[in-house]
């Protein structure tokens, strides 16, 4: 709970701050807090991925992009009243929606009663992997993981295609 509050504070800092380097550093702090919160929520695999990809790689990517662009954000000409209004209305609607959801860590919630027991009981016998996340990701849903790799490959190819033209231009 404390971690989540800290994350909310860092998010406010990101919204207010106009120096983009500071925003990127706050973003890195945010990702580390997120990784810690995920460990507290028992999602150790996700926490490791978030710490390396979210706090590490994203920060490097953003700093690289800032190196190629400008470091400061200009002040907007008009007051952002309409976006604020839209955000608050959507937030209020979502908070209203949470009143119908089960409380935190309720063992009778639907999420704990369906599908999951099947994996917890049978996955060790069927795959031989004690980590259920690994057995679902690599065995039961192996094709989805293959699709995910395709997405990453496509994104990488897109980045190379976009930045290659640039290098060709710089030579001319």
């Amino acid at each position, binding site marked *: *709970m404390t971690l989540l509050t800290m994350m*909310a504070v860092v998010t406010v800092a990101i919204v207010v701050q106009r120096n*983009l380097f500071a925003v990127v550093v706050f973003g890195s702090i945010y990702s580390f807090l997120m990784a810690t919160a995920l460990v507290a929520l028992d999602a150790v695999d996700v926490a490791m991925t978030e710490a390396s990809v979210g706090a590490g790689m994203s920060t490097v990517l953003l700093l690289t992009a800032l190196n*190629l662009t400008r470091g400061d954000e200009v002040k907007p000409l008009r007051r952002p009243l309409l976006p604020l209004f839209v955000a608050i209305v959507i937030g209020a609607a979502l908070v209203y929606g949470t009143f119908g959801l089960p*409380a935190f860590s309720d063992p009778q919630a639907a999420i704990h009663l369906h599908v*999951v027991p099947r994996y917890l009981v049978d996955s060790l016998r069927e795959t031989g992997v004690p980590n259920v996340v690994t057995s679902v990701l690599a065995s039961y849903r192996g094709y989805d993981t293959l699709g995910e790799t395709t997405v990453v490959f496509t994104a990488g190819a*897109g980045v190379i295609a976009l930045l290659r033209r640039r290098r060709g231009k710089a030579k001319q």
Partner: protein
Amino acid sequence: MSFTGHYTYWVTIFLMIAGLYIVIARGNLVKKLIGLGIFQTSVYILYIAPGKLIGGTAPILAASFHTYSNPLPHVLILTAIVVGVATLALGLAIVVRIREAYDSIEEDEILEIDRSEGEAQ
């Protein structure tokens, strides 16, 4: 319904609308992408927090444990993180290209340049 029982949902919603606000209100393209990232990461908590059981442990099967947190949201979010960084990389590459073409990454300035070019033609 209690305050502690729903606190995770409310923080998630706060992060979500903060990200949404940055995406709509801010003209800077890099800041917009960071806002999109916050929006994305709020979804991680939305998925993973309901799967947690107090007294449970990480879903790695062992004889000495009997209560495990729900592993299925973890699998979904693992994929979401990787796809998220892929979209971020692609978005930043496009921002760099826009900066080459317009010498600016501010939405207002880019629209202004487009408008004046349209009038000149």
